[in-house]
């Protein structure tokens, strides 16, 4: 019976993963397809990978995407982390106001956020890359805050007080006591901001200026007219890169845990 249950759950998990990864498999296969059409198999080729770096359009969109994603998520992480600390020590009433406001971009539909930001930006600043970065910060800060806040809440204030009582300056105490505790939250907030920004289409679509293309907006126009196959190649590379990167982080993380365990 137990064996059956185990088999069934493994099967179920496998099916879910198939569901999640099947489209990705399709795209990876397409990146090796020697045909401009996505529905015709023209034989195996590596030329899209070879051509990739000489395709200016794609490289420019990639550059823009990286610039926007990194700038906005780093900025959002700094802003969000300081904000979370501030909010945590606020009076309850103010905390509620701040959290309410923080919730707005999360709860609001992307399309409403995008449009409202566009309406604002067109008044004050010409639409361009800068407006997209502002918009991305706006929607990713909440993710950072909501990743850091729970860490702060589970933090025992006694530790910090003990540290300061023992003569540590608040900065030093923060760095030694608070920071290590909230760091995983900051990191996961940063990663979430990164992912959200990378994957965003709607908000970029409404706030971007002429000639500014992220991979998402570029794909949206190309989706209709036939996609340059180099994009499949690029996406496959990005995907595998993310896969490798996260795998490394994970193993390093678990390796460190092992060390800690052994030391104990």
């Amino acid at each position: 019976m137990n064996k059956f249950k185990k088999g069934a759950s493994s099967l179920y998990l496998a099916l879910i993963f198939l569901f999640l990864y099947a489209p990705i498999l399709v795209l990876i296969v397409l990146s090796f397809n020697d045909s401009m059409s996505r529905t015709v198999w023209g034989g195996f080729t590596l030329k899209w990978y070879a051509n990739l770096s000489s395709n200016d359009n794609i490289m420019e969109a990639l550059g823009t995407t990286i610039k926007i994603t990194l700038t906005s998520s780093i900025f959002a992480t700094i802003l969000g982390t300081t904000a979370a600390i501030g909010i945590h020590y606020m009076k309850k009433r103010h905390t509620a106001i701040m959290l309410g406001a923080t919730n707005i971009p999360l709860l609001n539909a992307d399309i409403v956020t995008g449009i409202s930001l566009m309406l604002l930006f067109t008044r004050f600043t010409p639409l361009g890359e800068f407006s997209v970065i502002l918009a991305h910060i706006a929607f990713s800060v909440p993710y950072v805050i909501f990743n850091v806040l729970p860490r702060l809440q589970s933090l025992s204030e006694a530790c910090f007080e003990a540290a300061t009582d023992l003569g540590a300056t608040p900065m030093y105490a923060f760095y030694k006591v608070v920071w290590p505790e909230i760091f995983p939250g900051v990191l996961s907030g940063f990663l979430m901001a990164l992912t959200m920004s990378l994957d965003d289409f709607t908000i970029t679509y409404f706030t971007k200026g002429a000639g500014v293309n992220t991979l998402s907006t570029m794909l949206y126009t190309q989706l209709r007219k036939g996609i340059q196959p180099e994009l499949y190649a690029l996406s496959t590379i990005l995907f595998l890169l993310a896969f490798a990167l996260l795998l490394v982080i994970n193993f390093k993380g678990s390796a460190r845990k092992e060390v800690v365990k052994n030391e104990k």
Partner: protein
Amino acid sequence: MKNKFLSLLTIASLSVASLLGFTSCGSDADDKDTLVVLNYGKYIESDVLKRFQEETGINVKYEEYESVEDMYAKYKAGSINYDVICTSDYMIETMRLEDELIPIDYSTIPNYSNIDKDIIEASAAFDPKHQYTVPYFYGTVGILYNTNMVDEDTVSSWDCLWDPDYRNQIVMINSQRDAFMVALEKLGYDINTTDTGELKEAYDLLCKEKSLIYAYLQDETYECMISEDAAMAVCYSGEAAMGMEYNEDLAYTVPKEGGNLWIDSWFVPRTCKHYDAAMKWIDFMCQEEAATENFEYVWYATPNTKVAAHEDAETLADETVFPTKETLSRCKLYEAYDNDTLDYTTNLWKRLKAY
């Protein structure tokens, strides 16, 4: 305490807001060597774009759009100052009537002499005095069909799009004006009618069709036809030519009731900040080499007479790419709608999509 906190916030945010305003005003200073171009999606060979920038030293901000209505909305949003735009006949006429166009200085465009006089003549429909536009490509709207699934007779009339035998096998064009054109032709009305009764009839007909069709598509049509997901599709001639390149069973026709001939042209809108660069751009597009490269990329009929020298006989004889005189005689250009008619059809289109 709370009030103090809030008022502090307001003051601080207002000051930052004004700061933001100031800096943006400061950075608004325009770069002399840039050019903001607005064109249909995938309507230029990227090498041509690259070469233009290299040869002229002008930095191009190249923006794409999907449909004519999309272009108009982008332009009207006013948040971006476009220098030179390419779009279709009737929208150019609309914008001309709104006084949104700046005359082109043809003396600065030596390559204008490459453009087919017949097409310039036909452009009179939307640019009567020949002062605002330079043709880029032209083509027709017709039916792309799979010869294994549909016979030639069936597609010789627009009626086939309402044939229940082809349920889920029909792709309709996802463009307001073109879809109404099809229905109006089937009804035997003028494609430029502004009669609300006739348009309403066309709308009813399109509603009837909706249950039969596989999808409303525009630029994806050729993919859909290559993979034989559908038997027939209403699409533009270049889209058809692209599909036929991949699948030999495909063929293209303009049904006997007639269809639409369109001419996409370059023009300079009132928002233009870099007039000289815009002239250089248009001239470059008329260049023999650039026009050839573009033609071999988009497969619409080119008005550039110099391109023919570079193409083989088979391409030049391709009736899908270059419509015959007989086909053209059945096709009409769209005329600009007045605002009321535009609003009326836009609303009908929305209703159809929600139907």
